[in-house]
């Protein structure tokens, strides 16, 4: 009977007398009617709150878990693209938002020789979204580099970082050829060795442990298996 609650509640010297049941308790009850009703009322209130809040929160975060649908868009005949330079193409990434949904990619034909080791009948589409914070990069043929206007990121011909703050090479878009037309499809990111991974946002490292620190998101497409 020397616990803290007794010291504060009981008068000094009543150490031997067991505390009488508090008012409102009937014989053998472990909880008074008042307490039971209070707890039940609070539980009901909590339930009512959850019924309102949980659907609202789910509604707001639902887009994170949306499975996207693949969109392919033709950007020109195969003869339009060479393996010596990139050609800019504009296509719609997101429907229904007008100009804001369009993006630019730089497209060239695959190069067979090292270090590219690409299928010469395939096409490479480099995203203009800077891997630093998402500004639009531009391809400069004189330097054979991609250059970002915002914070000075520079990428080589393959899109690998050679200067500035970007954390990984430029993203790419999947490509395919349908009836002589080059089509661009879903976005994917690459590691510093140009291994494809699921699309990451700019500013997020890729490869190794970084793929865990910046986990893949369910609303992106699986990375293509090839390269």
């Amino acid at each position, binding site marked *: 009977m020397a616990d803290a609650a007794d010291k504060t509640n009981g008068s000094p010297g009543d150490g031997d007398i067991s505390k009488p049941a508090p008012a409102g308790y009937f014989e053998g009850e472990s909880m008074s009617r008042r307490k039971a009703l209070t707890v039940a009322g609070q539980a009901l209130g909590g339930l009512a709150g959850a019924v309102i809040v949980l659907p609202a929160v789910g509604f707001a975060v639902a887009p994170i878990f949306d499975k996207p649908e693949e969109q392919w868009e033709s950007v020109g005949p195969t003869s339009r693209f060479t393996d010596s330079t990139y050609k800019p193409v504009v296509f719609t990434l997101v429907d*229904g938002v007008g100009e804001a949904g369009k993006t630019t990619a730089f497209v060239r034909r695959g190069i067979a020789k090292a270090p590219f080791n690409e299928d010469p009948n395939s096409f490479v589409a480099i995203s203009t979204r800077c891997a630093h914070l998402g500004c*639009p990069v531009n391809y400069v043929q004189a330097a054979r580099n991609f250059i970002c206007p915002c914070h000075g990121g520079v990428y080589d011909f393959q899109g690998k970082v050679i200067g500035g703050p970007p954390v990984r090479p430029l993203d790419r878009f999947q490509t395919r050829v349908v009836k002589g037309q080059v089509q661009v499809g879903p976005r994917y990111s690459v590691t510093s060795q140009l291994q494809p991974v699921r699309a990451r*946002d700019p500013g997020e490292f890729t490869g190794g442990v970084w793929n865990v620190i*910046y986990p893949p998101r369910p609303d992106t497409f699986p990375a293509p298996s090839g390269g």
Partner: protein
Amino acid sequence: MKLPMPQALKKPSKPGADGNSAGPAQALREVPADLVGWLDERTGGASFLTGMLYRKVPKGTNWFYTLGSATLFAFVVQATTGVFLAMYYDPSATQAYGSISHLTNDVFLGEFVRGMHKWGASVMIILIWLHMARTYIFGAYKYPRELNWVIGVVLLILTMVMGFTGYLLPFDQRSFWATEVGNNITGTGPFLGPYLADFLRAGPEFGATTLSRFYAIHMLLVPGLIIALIGAHLYLVVKLGTSAPPWLEPKRSRATLRQEAVSATASGNGAEARRGRVT
């Protein structure tokens, strides 16, 4: 024969109906006071208001103590102009820029109201920082006002959120790319960052509902939180009172002062005694 009617049986005249009563003009003049009295009788609001407005403030209270009120005024300007801007604004990716151009160029006083909102946003941020600096330098964050400091910091963060979400709404090139960059900075937080960025954008790319999401956060969610927290902030200010400036010496009783003077004179230090003035 006509008998005179006894005075007690006559219909009594209305009070004030004799010569020195108040005329209708006087009655009209008393309407505001009557109205206030009517309200106060039913709400008890007058004692609350007088308690708040006529509360005691410490000696040494100066112009620096008005920075909080100035911030509140800036918020009221933002809220008011924001409500009226919303009458012309269309938060859809294809219409937003056009509606802002229309508002700015065609609507009567549109440029002025938009300008108040735009520049007022910067003014509010600046005033918050000055208010915070005053609180820090004067030590006004100390016991028992720590909780008010915490609420103030949350208000600062919420105001920054207002700045971030509001920046997108004109939907010009600067808005769009600044928001891209801001979202991507959010995405660089480890583990949760990518999902937070997705939440802000409502998807993996800037999409159809990104703008309306920012608009809802900017004009419904965060203002509500700010208003609630300003209420808590002010409640604590009124309840705890403001702190005296740090250069004010603590108030001493006359007995203490006399004792100080005696001991100072005894030790031959007159300057100490002279310093012990009643503050």
